[in-house]
């Protein structure tokens, strides 16, 4: 432990304490709650910036608390953590802004924002965990804190969605627990380290390590929504829009993907995993998921469902990057962790705006929304084009690296999968853009007038900011302060110079 380690605790507590305080606020205390929310999110952002600055100055951060016998509760800031924690804190700030506007006048806001903050705490914790047990702790905490958000509306449908979500994730959690405990019984305490920590067991426990890897992928694959473990995700769409945005961009799904990245790179080590022969099946599963998700998205009329299946597909790009040996594919996968996050969150913000302002939930109702809500639709367009992989937007960068990495590694079929997927992306996004901009509007199902702006200013700011990020991440990809630059650093560490 060092003094600087308290910064990490600060990053956690900025949202944890906020959450606890908000729980006990009276429902009517609207203004105070809003300020607390923004304060927490802002403080976290500042602390993360301080962390980045410190790391830039060569400072290392870690803190360990007493926990299980023989296993401390450890937070640290390695390259992967920093990537994920930055993403989540930036997007949390945007989502908070958005959620405050979105939930104006709806009931149980104290409960909602309490769990909302805890959910982000769990995500941040996942990012900062320095050993496997700490990771598991936050991973399960995320499961629990997300449930109240999914069932927030309290309708029968919401409760059913929540039940399905809990069933999937808890079974996944139990499998993950088994994997973690089993690995510990072989290897002792597992601390994340570049290039893995289990090389010494390779000779003696090959079979067991393969089974444990499978268990890890099953356990984490539930949250990462790898086919056929993705069944909960479309059902969880009953949640309010900010929750969906958070779920898909930073919290649950991304936590699963990040977990897979952790296991492959920092527990097994990608080269060790390749020696074990466990990567090709993973790549195959990712490939199947990518195509399956895209195809299913094609047939959804409900906008949020279409986006959900799109997530199923897009998150597996990250898994794919992890499953292909070689630094280039790694760069593609990891950078997509960030890029998918900012693109998808933009799309969900926009979908929420359409629903809140015009009452449109379905693609077939979106004719002409671009004329009624040009700013929102512009953000939507940027993100959708990014998803398809149109240069110079963020998605293009990820896909380019993935494709190049696959070809370098000799997995040409992956390139084919990527091409097919891009086509499908275009097929399910372009019709929406066409309808939005080029068809003339009919009557809106349930229009809501917000006066000066096309919608509530808080609802508008968030997608505009994230859309700008999508452009920035693509256009300035080669600058030293881009996600890509950071990811390249990680890849160098993983594979050696």
């Amino acid at each position: 432990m060092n003094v600087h380690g308290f910064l990490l605790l600060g990053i956690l507590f900025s949202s944890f304490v906020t959450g606890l305080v908000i729980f006990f606020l009276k429902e009517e205390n609207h203004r105070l709650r809003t300020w607390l929310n923004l304060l927490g999110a802002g403080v976290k952002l500042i602390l993360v910036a301080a962390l980045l600055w410190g790391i830039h100055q060569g400072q290392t951060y870690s803190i360990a608390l007493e926990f299980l016998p023989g296993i401390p509760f450890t937070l640290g800031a390695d390259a992967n953590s920093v990537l994920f924690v930055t993403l989540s804190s930036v997007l949390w700030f945007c989502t908070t802004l958005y959620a405050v506007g979105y939930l104006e006048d709806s009931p149980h806001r104290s409960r909602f924002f309490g769990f909302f903050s805890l959910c982000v705490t769990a995500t941040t914790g996942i990012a900062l965990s320095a050993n496997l047990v700490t990771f598991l702790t936050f991973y399960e905490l995320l499961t629990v804190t997300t449930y109240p958000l999914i069932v927030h509306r309290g309708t029968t449908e919401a409760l059913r969605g929540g039940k399905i979500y809990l069933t999937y994730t808890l079974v996944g959690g139990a499998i993950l627990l088994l994997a973690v405990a089993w690995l510990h019984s072989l290897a002792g305490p597992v601390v994340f380290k570049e290039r893995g920590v289990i090389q010494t067991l390779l000779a003696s426990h090959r079979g067991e390590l393969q089974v444990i890897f499978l268990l890890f992928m099953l356990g984490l694959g539930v949250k990462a929504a790898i086919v056929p473990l993705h069944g909960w995700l479309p059902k969880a769409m009953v949640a309010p829009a900010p929750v969906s945005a958070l779920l898909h961009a930073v919290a649950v799904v991304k936590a699963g993907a990040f977990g897979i990245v952790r296991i492959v790179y920092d527990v097994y080590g990608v080269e060790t995993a390749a020696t074990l022969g466990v990567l090709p099946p993973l790549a195959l599963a990712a490939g199947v998921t990518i195509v399956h998700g895209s195809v299913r998205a094609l047939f959804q009329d409900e906008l949020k469902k279409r986006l959900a299946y799109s997530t199923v597909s897009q998150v597996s790009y990250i898994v794919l990057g992890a499953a292909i040996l070689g630094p280039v594919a790694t760069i593609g996968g990891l950078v997509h962790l960030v890029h998918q996050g900012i693109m998808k969150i933009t799309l969900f913000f926009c979908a929420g705006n359409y629903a809140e302002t015009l009452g449109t939930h379905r693609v077939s109702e979106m004719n002409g929304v671009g004329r009624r809500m040009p700013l929102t639709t512009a953000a939507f367009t940027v993100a959708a084009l990014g998803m398809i992989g149109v240069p110079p937007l963020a998605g293009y960068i990820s896909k380019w690296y993935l494709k190049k990495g696959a070809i370098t590694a000799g997995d040409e079929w992956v390139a084919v999968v990527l091409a097919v997927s891009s086509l499908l992306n275009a097929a399910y996004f372009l019709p929406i853009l066409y309808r939005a901009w080029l068809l003339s509007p009919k009557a809106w199902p349930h229009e809501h007038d917000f006066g000066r702006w096309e919608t509530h200013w808080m609802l508008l700011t968030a997608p505009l900011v994230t859309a700008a990020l999508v452009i920035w991440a693509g256009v300035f990809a080669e600058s030293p302060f881009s996600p890509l630059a950071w990811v390249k650093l990680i890849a160098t560490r993983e594979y050696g110079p």
Partner: protein
Amino acid sequence: MTAAWAIALLILSPLAAAALVFAFPRCGRWLALGTVAVVGGASVQLTWKVLTDGVQIHRVGGWGPPLGIDLRADGLSVLMLLITALIGLAVSLYAQRYFAAHESERPLPVNPDVAASRLSAAILDKDSVRRSAETPLRFKSPTRELVRGDRNPALHRERYFWPLFLFLWTALNALFLSADIFNLYVTLELLGFAAVTLVALAGKRAALTAALRYLFVSLTASLFYLLGVGLVYGQCATVDLASLAAKAQPGPALWVALALMTGGLIAKAALFPLHFWLPPAHANAPAPVSALLSALVVKGSFYILLRLWIEAFPALMTPPVAQLFGLLGAAAILWGSVNALVQSRLKLLIAYSTVAQLGYLFLLFPLAATPEGGFTAWSGGLIFLGAHACAKTAMFLTAGNILHAAGHDRIQDLDGMTHVLPVSVFAFGLAGMSLIGLPPSSGFAGKWLLLNAALAQGQWWWVAVMLLGSLLAAAYVARVLAHAFTRVEEPRKPHPIAPVMEWTALALALLAVGLGFASHGLAELLRVGAPVAGAMLLGGAAP
């Protein structure tokens, strides 16, 4: 305060307080709170002594075994004492308001239907009333029970709650400190009587029936235990736990003796398949009593089993015996969980959950009684015990709040309880987290160590049971909690509830979660005088 004084106060202060409260019923609350302070201080002091100076032995009367009785405090004892003090504190705060709050809910002296018909018959038949007025006490007149019903049943219950509670506490403290198997018999009886009477205090028909059944089981079990002690004495000429370990040679008498004692103790600990008495007793008792019973009383018998098999007669703890214990534990986990899942009443659900959670404790036998690394399972099982004690107390107290506020505890009608009792529901959720074994709760810490021991020793079948048990626990906890989120248009008006009743439940639930971070420290405490050796954590590079 020396260790001797700490030990003495742990036993004497609740005992003397019980007698005083009985003699001066008006002082019940204050004497109980005073006892909480004294016992709490003594427990902490004794823990400190054990941590710094190792196992503390007090020879009562200065004789020492085999003639005298030893009181012994090792890591396990003080852990149990601390848990008891903690639960005792919470329950005595809760009970300050509980009984007064339930004033409206009067006990039924008679089966209501029977009573009504008898009463109307008596009123119609004036002669019979007059007759019974003339000779009111010689025979059971139909109206007697009603006529002589307590003017203030809540006051009556509270007055008797305090001495009985203090007796229960005395019994537990004495039990956890005793190193003598005959003395343990006396503590068991003290414990059993207090527990049964506390159940009956609810006064309802179901509670009385459950209490009587509990009493029969408890007495029979005690006699089995007592006969076993006799056989042990006949064979070994001592009843001191430590001396027995040296003298015990496996033979028919000891095998039968141990079988008798074990049979009695597992009936008292409600291990499957002798758990049948527990759900009605725990579900029908007043909430603070349910909490005491589930958190502490059943653990007392488990504690003696541990002492007997692992400490006094390790020679008889053969692998088949160990596996048999585990098997019963596994059956309890599955049977209890499935039954909890299908209950329609909250308190019964919690009671069946106790049946299930007790099963985990018995996995300790196959996992700890091994040469290579018993300590991991030992500490895991006992941390689990502490976790369950806190979580279960929180749950029963919460159930008491819900029962009071809503007037019922039907699970399917609990919709929208978050709106009326947010703190209680939050406490229930946190306690549920620990029951399920979600990290970082103490329930997780215990389960983790048990899993680690099972995996490292290749006893994978227990792993499967534990994971399945966790999922089932998640299912029954979620079943209750889902009702907290349902949309209700018009929240019902609840009976007002004292804040202390909600906050004590929450405090314990927080503890059930927070103690996970203390599990390293608890394991170190348990190391003092532990009868099993081995690493804290099994596996490759473990320190």
